[in-house]
Structures are given as structure tokens and as C-alpha cells.
């Protein structure tokens, strides 16, 4: 009956923070280890020298991220990694929504300091999408709570599906898609990743795909 076992294998362990119980399965263990590895080497690496070639110029110039900005963006990258670990391990629906919001806001922070008006424009539109997202994300969670009377994924996994849950599931999916800048609303992301600073930008891509992977699992657990 328990969907978590059917989806991800046995539960290796859990941390009982009273009502919020983060748990580890083989699946989330793989996710966590990947995220930790990525975060460590993305945080360690320096930004690249981006070579820029222009028309009517013979020289190829290189640009890079200034040191102060790199430090700030590295901080945001590490924070994003931590929040991603939360996203994949958390055992509570509302907590999941909050972690996804934190991921979104750190993603925006990675791009906040770039002096490039079209990157900033994309970051701003992404921020707008994120602000709209609070409605479907938290609203979907609240509708689930109203219908089932619980937020814990462990309990929700054993519950049968019903029509209202379909709505809340769709809302949660839409919300997570918006927060992670996933398809089909990826234009902001594609604009943003044209900025310089390879390690930090890569973190954004990682975060959006991890959120996607996890949200699929959550939808299965709810269904």
C-alpha cells in the first residue's frame, strides 16, 4: 500500500523533527550524493574567462566575473545546494513547497548582481513567475491539507486518490514548474544562462532539474 516503498525502495532512515520527517530512500540517497558532489565542486571552482569575439574586431577579448561578485554568487550557490538537499529529502508537503521557494530565490540571487540588462530582465521576469508561483504551490498544498487532513508524505502515500487531489496535484506541478523555470516556461532560464560565471549558472540548471525529478516523485506519492 505504501507508495514510497513501491517508488523508491525501502526507507533507509529518517530524522524525526517532530511533525516534519525527512527520510532517505535509495533514490533520494542517490540524489543527495549527487547534489553534495556537485555543490562541493561548483563551490570550489573559479569562474571561467569567457572569450568574446566581436565583428570588425580582430582580437578576442576575455571577460570574467569580478571577485566580490563571485564571492556573493558562490554563497548563493552553496545555499542553493543546501536547499536542494532539503527538497529531495523532506517528508512534508508544506516544507517541500518552502524548500522549492528557497531554491527559486537563491537561483534569482545568483543572477542578481550581473551588470547586463537583458540578463537582469530575464531574472526579473523569473522573479515575477516565482511570485505568481506562491499561489499554486501553497494553494495546492492547502487544498491537499483540507482534503486529507495531513501534510506528511508518509501518511499521504497510503491514501487513495480522489478528484480534489488531482487539482492540488496539478497546482503543485505548475508551481514547481514555475519555480524551477522548467519547460515550457524556460525562456527566462535560457536567457539567464547566457551570463558569465560557469559554476553558478550550472547550479541553476542542476537545481531546476532536481526540483523536477523530486516533484515527479511527489506527484506519484500523492496519486
Amino acid at each position, binding site marked *: 500500500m505504501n507508495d514510497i516503498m513501491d517508488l523508491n525502495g525501502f526507507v533507509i532512515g529518517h530524522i524525526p*523533527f*517532530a511533525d516534519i520527517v525527512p527520510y532517505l530512500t535509495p533514490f533520494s540517497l542517490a540524489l543527495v550524493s549527487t547534489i553534495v558532489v556537485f555543490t562541493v565542486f561548483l563551490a570550489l571552482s573559479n569562474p571561467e574567462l569567457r572569450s568574446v569575439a566581436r565583428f570588425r574586431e580582430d582580437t578576442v577579448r576575455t571577460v570574467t566575473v569580478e571577485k566580490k561578485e563571485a564571492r556573493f554568487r558562490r554563497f548563493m550557490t552553496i545555499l542553493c545546494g543546501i536547499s536542494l538537499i532539503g527538497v529531495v529529502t523532506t517528508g512534508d508537503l*508544506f516544507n517541500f513547497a*518552502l524548500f522549492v*521557494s528557497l531554491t*527559486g*530565490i537563491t537561483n*534569482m*540571487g545568483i543572477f*542578481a548582481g550581473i*551588470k*547586463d*540588462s537583458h540578463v*537582469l*530582465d530575464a*531574472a*526579473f521576469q523569473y*522573479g*515575477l513567475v*516565482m*511570485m*505568481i508561483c*506562491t*499561489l499554486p504551490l*501553497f*494553494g495546492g*498544498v*492547502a*487544498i491537499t*491539507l*483540507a482534503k486529507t487532513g495531513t*501534510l506528511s508524505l508518509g501518511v499521504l502515500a497510503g491514501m487513495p486518490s480522489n478528484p480534489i487531489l488531482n487539482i492540488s496535484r496539478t497546482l503543485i506541478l505548475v508551481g514547481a514548474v514555475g519555480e524551477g523555470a522548467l519547460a515550457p516556461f524556460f525562456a527566462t532560464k535560457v536567457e539567464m544562462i547566457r551570463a558569465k560565471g560557469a559554476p553558478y549558472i550550472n547550479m541553476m540548471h542542476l537545481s531546476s532539474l532536481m526540483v523536477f525529478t523530486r516533484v515527479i516523485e511527489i506527484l506519484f506519492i500523492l496519486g
Partner: protein
Amino acid sequence: MNPLADTVVPTLVPQIFVNFYPIAIVIAIITAVVGLSGLILERNDFQKILIIQIPIFAMYLIVSAVGTDLAEALILPGMVVSLAELLAVSEILIFRELTKREKKGESPRVMNFKYDQIKMEVLKTALPITSVVCVIYGVILTGFTGGAVAGAGILIYLFVGKVGGFSHEFWEEMAGISGVAYVFWLLGFLIYFIAPQYWLIALFMSGGGIIIKVALKFGLLGILGREEYNR
């Protein structure tokens, strides 16, 4: 033993909340649809930020319609998230416009306005008392609410106050203090989860830490406004 202890907290949600629920959800959806359609029609970027508040209100309504203490505890994070996003997004908008202007080669000196001190009677008389009362009341409360109330008190005073000599270094120190408060507050949580029998000290650490943190942060915002406008 309280004779009425069993009637204090019911086992089920009261019937009146169950009756509220469908109306609240339908109204929330209508509000959200109105807000989102406004968003679709609006062209100006800053106006979009203002209109997005309406779907956020709809979100508050959906969450609060559950009608339990849990729902109340869930609205507070939602509120914080929306406020935080608003803060970051509006800042990015300002920075974007600045970059656009620079790129066009416009002289940034156009933006450099000189402001006079605002002369209103109420600013001299009522405002200091109000802010002091707000701060005192905020100190009595704990948690995010207390921080917000106290922060509002500090903020309004600093936002309209006289020109002061606080420098950027002072800011950074204030940020440092709030960082220390954050650590205190996290330590309080750790005590909760590791040794719940010492819950009282944990409660005070968390309550005190968060209020210092939030109030100082909002205070920073006020200093910011004053440094900008009352040179």
C-alpha cells in the same frame, strides 16, 4: 485540573469553518483569476509587482480556509516568502533600470535629486510615540510577528527621521548582529530537537533571536531609505 479542559479543544473542526470552506475557495479562485487577468493585461513592469499581490492574497485565503491552528502556522511562512520575493524582485527591477540607463549613455546625474526635509506636524509629535509603542509591543511579542511589529516601529522612525551619521560600516555591523541572532535562534531550535526537556530556554532563545534578527533587518531597510532621500 481544569473542569472544562475537554471542551477547550474540540476533536473536529467546528461546523462553521466547514461551512465557510467552499465559499472561501470559490472566492479565492475568483480573486486569483481577476488578479492574473490583470497581470496578463498589464504592460508596465513595476505595476505587475503590485498586481501580483492579489493572487498572493488569494493564496492566504486558500490556506486560511482550512481553519485550524496548523493553517495559521502555515500562513506566516507564506507571508514571509511573498515579502522576501517582493524585496528581491523590486531591487532587481531598480538595478535593471539603472543598467539600461547606463547602457544608453544617459547621464546618471539626472537621477540625483535633492530632497528637503518633510515638514508635517504629525511627524514631530505623534510619530516618535507611535514608533516607541510599536517597538515595546514588538518586544513583548515573540517570533516573526514581534519582529515585524518592532521592525515597523523602527522603520517608520528611521524612514522619516532626521539626517544621521550612520555609515556603511555601521550597516555591516548591524547585519553582523542579526547574523549572531540568527545563530542563537538556530541553537534554540537544536535544543528543542535534541533535548526537549530544556524547552523553556530553547523557547526564549528562539523567540529572542528571531525578534532581534527580523527587527534589525527591517531597521536596516529604514536606514537605507533615509540615507537615500535625506541627504
